């Protein structure tokens, strides 16, 4: 396990930051900088670094009225972002809220919040896959990203540098244009610690998510970087997306190395910074099967199939559409797919959205299902179990007292069409 950075000596401000602290750039920026200094000093940061891009999680589900009032206060003070700020997936699809029975009060409040964020200068892209569609930081670039799945992608796949920047921290970075340099901004903190020899076959996005989930369960620490070695399959972008999202969800991980795949792990020596791993584990087919088995079916009938968390890429939408071609979702089962505005538009131009909708599925955009008040939605439709190919989704919705079932993508679509889980068990 990695030592957790801790405070001590103070943080040194540059000339621009000193002006912000003196209030020369306004009270909102001053308060934001004070918060950043407090967080930075808590974790022993020695400086603040400029960021080229900020990605912010801010929606009513996560913010509550306290957060709304905070943002409203910033708008009243005339606050404006100093660098480009993009928004994460939110809790409402404004175009389809009625179809999925979302509360009109929530929709209205979310609309008001979006207006405030746009006034601050936010680019309302509402996506948790900004790295696939909006902004791709270069190797070594410092950013301030929220949503854990975006952070682990930036650090691991791109070699960019960010900590988990929760909503208020991203907001602060947007106002000041800097972020405290501790944790994953520092090369020494990015070195691998734990070695995982991956011997299992990985054939579906769900398998990659399950791999992330089971490694995450063993790491369980924000500051510790796992190294995946021996991966036989060359991962595609959506494989890494599911892997990272699950590692972050189950393990609070903000970074991993995959030897021969990610840019700071051309070989094992580089991944571990020339030191030996602190511990080694093997992950085989039996481990993967055991992970699936932690999400057993409660009964054969499936109430709702959810493909979400993270939002689907165009390639994922294309595959789902092909699996549904000429078929029809069962009358007792619902199929929900979430993506972002850009991918929905692209997939519509390619005919994929029409195929999914013609089959009876819904393609929601700008949102992610687990923040759409899933317990309320499930109660409104009488859903008790949720079948998904996303390990991250399975992890989260258990907390909402819904029964999660994790299976591979083709199984999910087959169950959506037949209304039942096919025989063959969790790994089938």
């Amino acid at each position: 396990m990695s030592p957790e950075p801790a405070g001590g000596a103070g943080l040194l401000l540059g000339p621009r930051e000193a002006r912000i602290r003196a209030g020369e750039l306004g009270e909102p920026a001053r308060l934001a900088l004070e918060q950043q200094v407090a967080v930075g000093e808590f974790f022993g940061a020695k400086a603040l670094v400029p960021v080229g891009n900020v990605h912010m999680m801010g929606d009513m589900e996560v913010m509550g009225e306290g957060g709304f009032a905070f943002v409203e206060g910033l708008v009243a003070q005339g606050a404006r972002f100093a660098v480009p700020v993009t928004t994460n997936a939110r809790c409402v699809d404004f175009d389809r809220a009625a179809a999925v029975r979302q509360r009109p009060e929530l929709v209205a409040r979310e609309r008001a919040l979006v207006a405030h964020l746009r006034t601050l200068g936010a680019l309302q892209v509402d996506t948790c896959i900004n790295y696939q569609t909006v902004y791709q930081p270069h190797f070594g670039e410092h950013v301030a990203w929220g949503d854990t799945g975006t952070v682990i992608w930036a650090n691991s796949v791109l070699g960019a540098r960010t900590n988990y920047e929760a909503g208020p921290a991203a907001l602060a970075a947007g106002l000041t244009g800097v972020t405290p340099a501790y944790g994953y901004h520092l090369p020494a903190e990015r070195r691998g610690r734990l070695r995982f020899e991956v011997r299992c076959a990985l054939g579906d996005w769900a398998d990659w998510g399950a791999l992330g989930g089971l490694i995450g369960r063993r790491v369980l620490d924000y500051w510790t970087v796992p190294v995946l070695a021996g991966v036989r399959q060359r991962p595609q972008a959506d494989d890494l997306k599911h892997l990272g999202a699950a590692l972050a969800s189950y393990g609070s991980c903000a970074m991993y190395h995959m030897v021969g795949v990610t840019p700071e792990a051309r070989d094992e020596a580089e991944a571990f910074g020339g030191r030996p791993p602190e511990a080694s584990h093997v992950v085989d087919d039996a481990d993967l099967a055991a992970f699936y088995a932690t999400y057993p079916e409660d009964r054969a009938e499936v109430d709702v199939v959810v493909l979400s968390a993270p939002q689907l890429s165009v390639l994922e939408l294309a595959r789902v559409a092909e699996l549904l071609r000429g078929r029809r979702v069962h009358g007792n089962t619902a199929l929900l797919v979430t993506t972002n505005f850009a991918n929905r538009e692209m997939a519509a131009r390619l005919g994929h959205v029409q195929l999914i909708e013609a089959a009876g599925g819904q393609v929601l955009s700008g949102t992610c299902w687990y923040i759409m008040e899933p317990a309320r939605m499930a109660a409104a439709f009488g859903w008790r179990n949720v079948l998904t190919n996303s390990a991250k989704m399975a992890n989260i919705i258990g907390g909402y007292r819904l029964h999660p079932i994790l299976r591979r993508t083709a199984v999910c679509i087959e169950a959506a069409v037949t209304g039942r889980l096919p025989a063959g068990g969790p790994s089938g």
Partner: protein
Amino acid sequence: MTADRPLAPPPGRVVLTAPPGFGPEVEALVVLSRSTFSIRYDMDRETGVISRKGHALEGLSLAGKIVYFPAVQGGVAAGWAFLALAHRGVAPAGVLFGRTNPVMIQGLVLAGIPALHQVRPDPFTVLATGDRVRLRPARGLVELVTPPRAGSAGCSR
């Protein structure tokens, strides 16, 4: 439980040390958890009550308490959640961690709630739930103010 405490320091005695933390000094009853903490997974964010089945503090309100968690889990939800709890008047008075992550501290800083991490020794060896403690973040200290009332955990559910 008091019987679990090998040491019973006198009132006002420093019982825990830590690196410098965040926030003003605060005094309140302490609640010790052996379970880790995730806002999204473990807590009802409307009430500030620990809601996850099987959590060591299940059913307990953290409102006005200084609470200890050995470690944390979960994602960015904690960033806004402490402010939301404070807005409803059900936020903890302070938080002590073994290990933590940036999101917890970002959220506590936003809400102005004092925090320490890397507290030593294990709080279970020197404190019991219901003890009254003083948290002094700038100096990285936790002091025992009064010992617990006999036979009482000192916390409402």
